[in-house]
């Protein structure tokens, strides 16, 4: 049975079709684009908030997308345990919507950074990392100007205590170093998950590293993990 992926399209989303392509063509699942003015995500098994520049990044990245009509239903869906995956701008929307803690500030370099980075899997066994090993290193590209994850020390401690940090920027060998941090994120955080384990946001773009034609397929592990965890563990919602 195929999973149904719903990819939300905000005005200014630009990785929506990439995510759709990966879900449908690479993974062989069902996928549909959900225009932000729709009021329901429908009967999907996974909601993806894709990368891009929703509302031109006006005011703050993700701040206006949060008020798109569809977001009410995305919040409802998430609060009911539905699997929600925010990539890049989607991550920014999730923190603005309050579905994940913290905020994404301007990169400390002030530069838009577009390159492959290495990520260390800090938490395996989530919906998004069910096929990964803890400590495994994935090579996935980033492309953002505002990916500098920040939160106060209290929240950071809670994220660490509750094991909610899924990915950290690292070097090729898996060492989490200041030099491997592309944007100044606190504690090299690249991706986090909510306490319930159904909502994850990450700045890197796994959908850009899923098609073998691009010579990088580490990102596919994240999508395969979703399929594996939802299909084989019958946690369909």
């Amino acid at each position, binding site marked *: 049975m195929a999973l149904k992926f719903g990819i939300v399209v905000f005005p200014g989303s630009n990785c929506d079709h990439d995510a759709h392509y990966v879900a449908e063509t690479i993974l062989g699942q069902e996928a549909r684009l959900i225009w932000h003015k729709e009021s329901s995500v429908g009967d999907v098994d996974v909601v993806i908030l894709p990368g891009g520049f929703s509302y031109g990044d006006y*005011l*703050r990245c993700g*701040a206006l997308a949060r*008020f798109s009509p569809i977001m009410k239903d995305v919040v409802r869906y998430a609060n009911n345990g539905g699997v929600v995956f925010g990539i890049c701008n989607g991550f920014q929307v999730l*923190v*603005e919507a309050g579905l994940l803690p*913290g*905020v994404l*500030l*301007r*990169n*400390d*370099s*002030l530069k838009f950074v577009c390159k492959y980075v290495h990520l260390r899997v800090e938490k395996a066994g989530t919906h998004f990392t069910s096929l990964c090993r803890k400590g495994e290193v994935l090579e996935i590209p980033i492309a953002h100007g505002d990916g500098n994850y*920040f*939160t*106060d020390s209290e929240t950071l401690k809670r994220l660490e205590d509750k094991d909610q940090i899924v990915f950290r920027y690292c070097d090729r060998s898996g060492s989490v170093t200041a030099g491997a941090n592309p944007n*100044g994120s606190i504690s090299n955080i690249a991706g986090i998950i909510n306490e319930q384990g159904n909502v994850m946001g990450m700045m890197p773009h796994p959908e850009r590293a899923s098609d073998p034609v691009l010579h990088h397929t580490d990102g596919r592990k994240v999508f395969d993990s979703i399929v594996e965890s939802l299909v084989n563990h019958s946690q369909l919602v």
Partner: protein
Amino acid sequence: MYHSKILVTLRQSILDPQGKAVEHGVHSLGYDSVRNVRIGKFVELNVDASSREEAEKITREVSEKLLANPVMEDFSITVEEKK
């Protein structure tokens, strides 16, 4: 009608790389005495309200809910009656 001005500033605990870059620019102009440059946002808007209190309340709510993100920003507001 009331006119509100909202100043959104990064919280002191947040590093401001933009402010740092501008500070470097100011220093290269020769103004070595300039310190602690911080960049913020300025928003102005009109509120159709029956009293100043109501206009202030609305401005504050809008600021809390949208214009500023309390995780990283503080804001201050001033409200004046528009003649």
